[in-house]
């Protein structure tokens, strides 16, 4: 489920990725990753990874339980970058190597 909320001003250059990658649940992020091409993920990764630490610090200025809407969107984009890093950095393919048809569903996690 994508949303129309926007990223913070300082990260507006990442806005083209927001619609695809600001996804509320791990289920959606995993699904998006495993149905994306490596080229799509590489493009997202190369634009965002150099600014990851800056993005974490930006989010970290706000209390975890009172994140403004735009900061929540940035946090979701960070979660997707973590997901995409599994493909880009580790496996060099969308799904884990040799995972075959295995499925593991995350049924509970904290929010945001």
């Amino acid at each position: 489920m994508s949303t129309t909320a926007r990223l913070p001003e300082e990260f507006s250059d990442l806005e083209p990725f927001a619609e695809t990658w600001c996804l509320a649940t791990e289920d959606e992020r995993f699904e998006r990753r495993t149905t994306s091409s490596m080229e799509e993920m590489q493009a997202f990764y190369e634009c965002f990874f150099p600014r990851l630490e800056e993005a974490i610090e930006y989010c970290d200025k706000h209390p975890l339980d009172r994140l403004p809407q735009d900061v929540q969107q940035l946090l979701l984009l960070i979660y997707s970058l973590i997901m995409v890093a599994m493909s880009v950095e580790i496996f060099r393919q969308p799904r884990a190597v040799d995972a075959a048809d295995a499925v593991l569903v995350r049924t509970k996690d904290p929010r945001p």
Partner: protein
Amino acid sequence: MGRWPKPPEGSWTEHYPELGTGPISFEDSVSPEFYELEREAIFKRAWLNVGRVEDVPRSGSYFTKELVVARTSVIVVRDGEGAIRAFHNICRHRGNKLVWSDFPREETQGFCRQFTCKYHGWRYGLDGSLAFVQQEGEFFDLDKPSLGLKPVHCDVWAGFIFVNLAEVPRETLREFLGPMVTGLDGYPFGEMTERYDFVGDNNSNWKLFADAFQEYYHVPALHPQQVPPAVRNPGAGFECAHFQIDGPHRVVSTAGARRWTLAPEHMYPIEVATRSGMVGPWHTPGEGPLPPGANPGRVEPFGISNFQIFPNVEILVYEGWYIWYRYWPTSPSTHRFEGTLGFYPATTVRERIEHEVASVMFKEFALQDAGMLGGTQTALEMSPVKEFPLGDQEVLVRHFHKVVGDWVDAYHRERGEAGP
């Protein structure tokens, strides 16, 4: 190799002479007949870990657990006094499944003041007593006090809720767990309440899946990606620092420098950027000495201890977070895997991100195990070979299958039957 001292007998396996050193059979993991025996000999007699106290936070909180292998469903509830109780999930009136939400075969959880049967509206208190019968006057000699929910033995250790389906359990939970497992007393599970829960239906026998989590011998071959390519050694092996057995339970501990104390090429960029990864957050709020029982081999530098609680539970303790697995048999060739990561609740966004990274990486490598073991199951079912060698690094696999066999043999003996 040979970095960690072995027992005086020369190997971990020979340290426990009852295990032998010969090849073993995995017929116990493919035979439908053996699976039928496991239902009775193991799952209807052992203490089974069905949840944690955080799953029933207040009076009236409940969850149901489908114990397919034991052909029953149980309700676990925190009663009005705050005690945790378990009942068979069946209405005493016409045998309807008492608690379910959208579909009777699916587990559910929630909060209530009474359990109300969907069929004819009978109601039960949180203590299981029959509280209300619709048109009670129409019944004959109805003895309400004797028509409470059928209780299931239930006890709690270290916040882990266990049930026992036997009429009379042979041992208390604490006796069953024994000194090695209860050596974890004092580990702060109760503070690590931020949970990431996972469920997967896997195409392998429950024991074959558990086997992959009680040895690290497979890690360099199946999970080479755990080590970044720049420092990956294709010929690398893996040697554990300590193995220990106590009754039906097992523990293995690893040693080694913390990943983040090594040069950056030993980590993936995402790990460096987030200060978390394969082995969890680099720093956690609860740092401090572990209870001595968490590291029974006094391994230094300590990596992780991996406790296998018979029959189907595993708890992996790190300094500052833990992982908890359950393997629930659903047929001779399938099981439901439940995995949970527990952390100190994040107080900042950065900490939450650290937990997310650890949870995402955990899933990737668990998927490799689950994918491959479907292949093990298929191959074993067709195998012309019936005996397989195990190395010393696989001593716990050897012990696990032996204990399962011993429990089935004991069941036969008690019934005056010959073994399979």
